[in-house]
């Protein structure tokens, strides 16, 4: 069993589906739950969920490659994508997590496989601790994982062990930092102030023509 | 008159009065015809109506541009290459007969001269490609060389058949021979296209398309692959020379094709000896040249290009055997008739 983060349903025996999206496509949702359950059994997963029609199966980091291979052989041969999420309490720019105190800081690496005969598809998810973001590569399993892993490596600083050519994909070679980490500040948002913070109302006591005008107008109004 | 002075005058007349207007006319034709074939208007403003002055304006623009020589280039060879290409093209014009007496020089070995001189441009292209110091240019130059060599052969063999049928190597003589064709004892005064050289004509046109590096055989310059091949680094006046050479070459090759297969300055029904042919002849020849050029332009704007190996296959496996067969056929034909 892996660690069980807050947003993940706890699996008692093989897995239970959390209540899904309120009304939209509940038929799909149950289909997603069915797929998630089936794949979880195939790959020997710790738990699974099917919220919002998105089937997710959680596996251990040690069993990552064999789980992906098992899912592929179990009828999901199409490699859709691989990426990661940085779950972090400290967020430099953008939205913070809803309950930072309950959050276990980690990287989630996920890989989406799908069938090409029906709509079934699944996200295989595994967690990496922040201090040791390494995981085995999927390149021997899926040739297409090469670019996706290179992207995840440069964006999150995750090391894919055994990757044949783990160099930067998008970023220049000299680039430092991992842009999609939550600790990476966005320069564009640093150099320019948000226009929304400027208010029309001048602060009391502040100098400047606009404030004076307002006061002058108030005086005139009072006299009349 | 001094011999050398005469040569200079003749070259200037040929280059200034025949080649340049011919090339400009074909360039304009290409611009306008391609545009309308693609539902476009094409040149519109230059010169007032129809954009007739567009080729001139383009030429003037190119002349004003900087003449760049890349640092990695072999400057002397790089500078010389366009002249070689242009001169080899101008030399072809010398032997084209425009009328019974309108030939700069009616050589007895005209056909031989033609084939010798036209392959000179290969040298210029190879020089350009190699000296540019650019990998794309080098590949373009190599492709051009391979292609020109491959197509020189079917072209020579196709022309040999004409020479066999006409019994002369002089271009003027070939026109006269067409005007006096006899088949099976009957006087059938028709061009060789109809009287026996249809296959030869097809081979010759295909080979000249390849020599001119026009679609479907434009691999040496293939823009989407080699970014204009051996022309990549050229700019300004030197690029203009290549450009002009290309179209002058097109006029030259169509004129040769017209002379060899379509009766040149002569038309069925006209007397090849009459004096008025010196006036009518050039008009007839130019019309034939324009019709053939239109055909070339039409091909270019309809077809995609072939691949280098497919081109070689076409040349060595199809055109050369066919042209050999054509010679044998012509020889038999000649004996029988």
């Amino acid at each position, binding site marked *: 069993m892996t660690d069980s983060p807050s947003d993940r349903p706890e699996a008692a025996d093989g897995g239970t589906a959390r209540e899904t*999206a*309120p009304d939209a496509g509940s038929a799909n949702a149950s289909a997603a739950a069915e797929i998630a359950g089936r794949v979880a059994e195939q790959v020997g997963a710790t738990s699974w969920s099917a919220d919002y029609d998105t089937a997710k199966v959680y596996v251990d980091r040690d069993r990552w490659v064999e789980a992906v291979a098992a899912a592929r052989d179990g009828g999901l041969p199409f490699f859709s994508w691989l990426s990661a999420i*940085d779950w972090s309490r400290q967020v430099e720019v*953008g939205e913070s997590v809803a309950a930072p105190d309950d959050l276990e800081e980690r990287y989630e690496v996920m890989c989406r496989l799908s069938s090409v005969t029906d709509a079934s598809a699944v996200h295989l998810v595994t967690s990496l601790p922040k201090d040791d973001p390494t995981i085995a590569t999927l390149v021997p399993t899926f040739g297409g994982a090469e670019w996706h892993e290179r992207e995840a490596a440069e964006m999150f600083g995750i090391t894919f062990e055994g990757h044949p050519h783990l160099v930067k994909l998008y970023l220049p070679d000299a680039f430092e930092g991992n842009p*999609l980490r939550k600790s990476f500040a966005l320069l564009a948002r640093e150099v320019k102030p948000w226009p929304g913070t400027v208010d029309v109302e001048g602060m009391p006591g502040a100098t400047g023509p606009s404030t004076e005008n307002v006061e002058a107008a108030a005086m005139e109004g009072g006299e009349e | 008159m001094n011999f050398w002075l005469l040569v200079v005058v003749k070259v200037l007349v040929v280059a200034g009065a025949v080649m340049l207007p011919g090339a400009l006319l074909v360039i304009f034709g290409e611009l306008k015809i391609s545009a309308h074939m693609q539902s476009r208007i094409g040149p519109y403003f230059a010169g007032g109506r129809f954009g007739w002055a567009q080729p001139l304006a383009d030429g003037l623009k190119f002349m004003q541009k900087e003449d760049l020589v890349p640092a990695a280039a072999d400057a002397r060879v790089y500078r010389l290459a366009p002249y070689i290409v242009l001169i080899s093209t101008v030399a072809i014009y010398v032997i084209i007969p425009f009328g019974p007496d309108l030939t700069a020089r009616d050589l007895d070995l005209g056909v031989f001269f033609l084939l010798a001189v036209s392959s000179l441009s290969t040298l210029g292209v190879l020089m350009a490609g190699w000296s540019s110091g650019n990998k794309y240019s080098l590949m373009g130059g190599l492709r051009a060389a391979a292609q020109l060599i491959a197509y020189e052969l079917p072209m020579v063999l196709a022309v040999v058949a004409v020479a066999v049928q006409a019994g002369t190597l002089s271009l003027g003589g070939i026109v006269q021979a067409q005007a006096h064709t006899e088949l099976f004892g009957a006087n059938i005064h028709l061009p060789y296209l109809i009287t026996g050289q249809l296959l030869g004509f097809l081979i010759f046109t295909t080979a000249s398309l390849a020599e001119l590096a026009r679609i479907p055989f434009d691999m040496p310059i293939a823009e989407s692959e080699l970014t204009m091949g051996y022309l990549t680094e050229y700019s300004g006046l030197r690029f203009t020379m290549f450009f002009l050479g290309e179209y002058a070459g097109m006029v030259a090759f169509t004129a040769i094709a017209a002379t060899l297969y379509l009766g040149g300055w002569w038309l069925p029904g006209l007397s090849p000896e009459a004096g008025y042919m010196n006036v009518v002849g050039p008009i007839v020849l130019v019309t034939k040249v324009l019709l053939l050029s239109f055909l070339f332009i039409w091909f270019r704007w*309809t077809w995609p290009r072939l691949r280098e190996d497919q081109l070689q296959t076409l040349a060595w496996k199809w055109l050369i055997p066919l042209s050999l067969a054509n010679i044998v056929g012509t020889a038999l034909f000649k004996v029988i008739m």
Partner: protein
Amino acid sequence: MTTRLDPTVAMHLSDAAVSVELETPEMTLNIGPQHPSTHGVLRLVAKVDGERVDSVEPVIGYMHRGYEKLAEVRTYAQITALINRIDWVSGFCNEVPFVIAVERLMGIEAPERAQYIRLILAEMTRISSHLLFMSSYPLELGAPTPLMYALREREHVMDLIEGVTGGRFHPNFNRVGGVKPAAGGGSSTKKVVQDLPSGFFDGTRRAMDRVDLVCDELDTLVTGNELFRARTVGVGIIPPDKALAYGVSGPNLRASGVGFDLRKHEHILPYDDIEFEIPVGRNGDCFDRFVVRLQEIRQATRIVRQAVDRIPAGPLQAKVPRILKVPQGQCYVRAENPKGEMGYFVVSEGGRIPYRVKIRSASFSNLSILPWILAGQLIPDLVAIMGSLDFVLGDVDR
């Protein structure tokens, strides 16, 4: 005096002279980032031996704009405006899966009329994207005229898209809960409803007829041309298992004989009400990839005609709170973009902006097969194969 050699020895000697390997050193050829056939700023570092390509290493990222990071600092409405620039030739199709993902997270469903408008505009976008391919691909093979014919008719489709959305390439017309309901009007100085403008249905039918006609023209001019066939048939074959392993999707996958189309499987737009076929190739070569797209245009005109006939009346927008707050959750929605599977994995932590958006773009995966497929090909075939994959650099780099 000449020495006479035994004939067999002489033969062996001449054989040996011929079979000496011609040592040609490998040349590194940089194709791109500025090259006519790379559709933008893609660079291929090719090791070539004469005309033969030994290996290719694509270098991407010249167009990387970091959409996934940008999405983390933008509200959902702002992201919609941004993401139609990912694959800029099929802008509308990029918006659809994203807004549907947000709708699912919020538990909203768009009204039927809005869904039909989405479907019509998505198919029109598919037509325009494929027509662009129809134009650029023959150009790469040296035929410049199909370009003009395809673009000529594409113009009519673009005009229709612009008439509805106000944008030709970047419609920004999808809203969470439907399509753009109203915007600043004219001199009336009132917000006006952004429903389909009058004349849209007739104009659409006319445009579809013209598109069908140009498909016939392209069939004659391109697929029927022996030279085109010589360049494409049997060139650049992608076997189905390789295609799946590399995540190649869309027409490229279908050309390899895998008849998988998300329009039939993902019920995010009302495709179930509409009859259409999925063109599938057999060989997975460049020719099949071209023909599959050509046939898809014909199917798309068929879809648009049916959708125009049965579009219901009704509102354009479901009830949506004025300030868009998306409840906590993670949702992945994918749709059949003209280039392949386009998907968004939206992770919300309950605010006005998402916690993370993973963008799965089709061209990225489609292009990742390049090193495998280009090894051992000729340079002209390299151009032919690359063009046949129909990628957009913005969609590769995001």
